[in-house]
């Protein structure tokens, strides 16, 4: 896949305050560092399989900043960036990739649904949550995230159709990073842009340069404002690229040329914002170095928190299967207590 030259709408960064831009920039650095540390932790056996997002920071951070805290997020397994921005602690995300149930539990007041592993199935959930907001008369927006491959799944089409028919306050946000594991977009769909699919459902489709933080921010903000006004859903295709593999269990060099990755790295979303900040005279290389050091401390604190989390009690296997445990499960839980105690292992 080639980098996309022309996307709408164009960035209008002149209208953004230095303060907001700096804030978003710092978040992008944090997210990238978090991601790199997570890959490293997996390589050293301290995390399970992990799905990296490096290269997609602009799409995720820009989207996160454009939303309100009360909005609902329905993520895939790659939405660590937008989740951090929306208030999910980094330690929670680490716990998830460490196979811990606590990793699916956002703090009270943070409306992020647990990660969805099956492809596209979370998009109807976002649609349903938006439907509930509409019925309750709240001006809250739901955002369903997906990748380019997910647009081939039936659930995506059913969700888009519901969103259009019921005119729901939902944003369906696709990070088109060019590959569904190894399959490129050209083998995923016969259309040129994913955004054009939206027309088939009476949904506004917008294609945006997903490596342009400001363009993503403005596009999502516009879609969210529209949704809050009761003017219906938007499908956003943010064109971006993942630098690494689909997950740490995959080797992207089997299906991509190194030159293609390099070509995209030349359009790095973080470098682009840094350049703007330096041009504006509000950032310097020294500050940049200091910022990377600072986020290292923040990420390390989250890793420490994950590692200090006590062993999971065996009862947690049973506690939340139902609101009230059926007799069968009480007996099965008692067997575990008898045979293994209730200490648990990490």
């Amino acid at each position, binding site marked *: 896949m080639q980098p996309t030259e022309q996307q709408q709408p164009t960035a209008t960064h002149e209208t953004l305050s230095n303060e907001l831009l700096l804030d978003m920039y710092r978040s992008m650095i944090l997210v990238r560092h978090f991601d790199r540390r997570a890959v490293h932790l997996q390589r050293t056996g301290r995390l399970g399989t992990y799905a990296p997002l490096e290269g997609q920071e602009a799409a995720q951070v820009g989207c996160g900043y454009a939303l309100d805290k009360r909005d609902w997020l329905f993520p895939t397994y790659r939405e660590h960036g937008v989740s951090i921005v929306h208030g999910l602690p980094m330690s929670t995300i680490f716990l998830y990739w460490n196979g811990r*149930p606590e990793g*699916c*539990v956002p703090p009270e007041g943070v409306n992020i649904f647990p990660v969805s592993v099956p492809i596209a*199935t979370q998009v*109807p959930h976002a649609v*349903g*949550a938006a439907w509930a907001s509409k019925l309750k008369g709240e001006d809250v927006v739901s955002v369903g995230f997906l990748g380019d491959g997910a647009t081939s799944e039936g659930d995506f089409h*059913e969700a888009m159709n519901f969103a259009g028919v019921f005119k729901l306050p939902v944003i369906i946000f696709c990070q088109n990073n060019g590959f569904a594991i190894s399959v490129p977009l050209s083998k995923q769909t016969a259309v040129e842009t994913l955004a054009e699919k939206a027309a088939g459902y009476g949904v506004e489709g917008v294609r945006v340069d997903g490596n342009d933080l400001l363009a993503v921010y403005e596009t999502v903000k516009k879609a969210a404002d529209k949704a809050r006004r009761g003017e219906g859903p938007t499908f956003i295709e943010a064109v971006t690229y993942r630098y690494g593999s689909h997950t740490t269990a995959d080797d992207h060099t089997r299906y991509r040329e190194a030159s293609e990755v390099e070509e995209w790295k030349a359009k790095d979303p973080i470098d682009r914002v840094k350049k703007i900040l330096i041009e504006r005279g509000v950032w310097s290389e020294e500050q940049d170095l200091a910022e990377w050091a600072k986020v290292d401390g923040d990420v390390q604190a989250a890793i420490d928190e994950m590692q200090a989390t006590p062993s999971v009690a065996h009862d947690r296997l049973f506690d939340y299967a139902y*609101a009230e445990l059926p007799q069968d499960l009480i007996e099965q839980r008692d067997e575990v207590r008898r045979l293994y105690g209730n200490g648990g292992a990490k």
Partner: protein
Amino acid sequence: MAKMTIIQAITEGLRVALREDERVLVLGEDVGVNGGVFRATEGLQGEFGPHRVVDTPLAEAGIIGSSVGLAVNGMRPIPEIQFFGFIYPAMEQIVAHVSRVRMRSQGRFTCPMVIRAPYGAGIRAPELHGDSPEAFFVHQPGIKVVCPSNPYDAKGLLLASIDDPDPVLFLEPLRMYRAFREEVPEGRYTVELGKANVVKPGKDVSVFAWGTMLRVALEAAKAAAEKGVDVEVVDLRTLSPLDRETIAESVKKTGRAVVVHEAPKTAGLGAEIAAVIQDEAFLYLEAPVVRVAGYDTPQPLFSLEDIFAPDAKRILHGIDKAMNF
């Protein structure tokens, strides 16, 4: 007290729930203006409006998937799948999400919904309209499966299902929808989930059935009585979780068991019930547990459905087998 059919009792149950709780909404294909293909939702859209009783696009995954979002965000959706055999496109949503939301989020999010689906054969419908895949869902933890066999239970179990904090798959025996009438109390009452019902006490052999097969089992019990065999007929009512205690108590009393279902025999619920009986009442058994079930073929076109699904003759044969081991 009014005499009602099963379908009228279900409509009444939905009406009570819609009236009492603003969070309740009914959604599905043809449930609004048309009142459902079986008329289970007849008149409800007129009474509660198109935002409470919603005609959706033809999309089972969309109906169940959006119900997940509705439930998580505070509503109490009652999605209808037009025929149980059309639930397959929504299977991923039910197995991957509906049944797992509570456990996945450690109770932070819950997914209370009642998925209604008419099930079973016997109305001469086309292919797939007569399937009975209840075992698929009984095998999936996190979702309860309920199946009434009479009007009183239909309304009471439906209201209990709507009250339940966990998702419930509510199977409606479509062949019995209008087969008979029974007195059904007005207003709210519930029948507890997870409790089987000894419909006809007996001392010689226990017959376990649910939904449509319950009536057929009673017919077989009557025929057996003429041959001097006193059959106990147990209506399971809730298929997940199973009422192991009532099943075991019945077998301890009679020493013999016949399980009846429309679904194919292999790995059907009958196998699970036989295992429960072995776990709980092995030393009381006078004969192996007999399964009288659909044959291990796909649900056939309707010219063959009468030989596919057990009838009283086949159940009687099963009773004889248990009695004469």
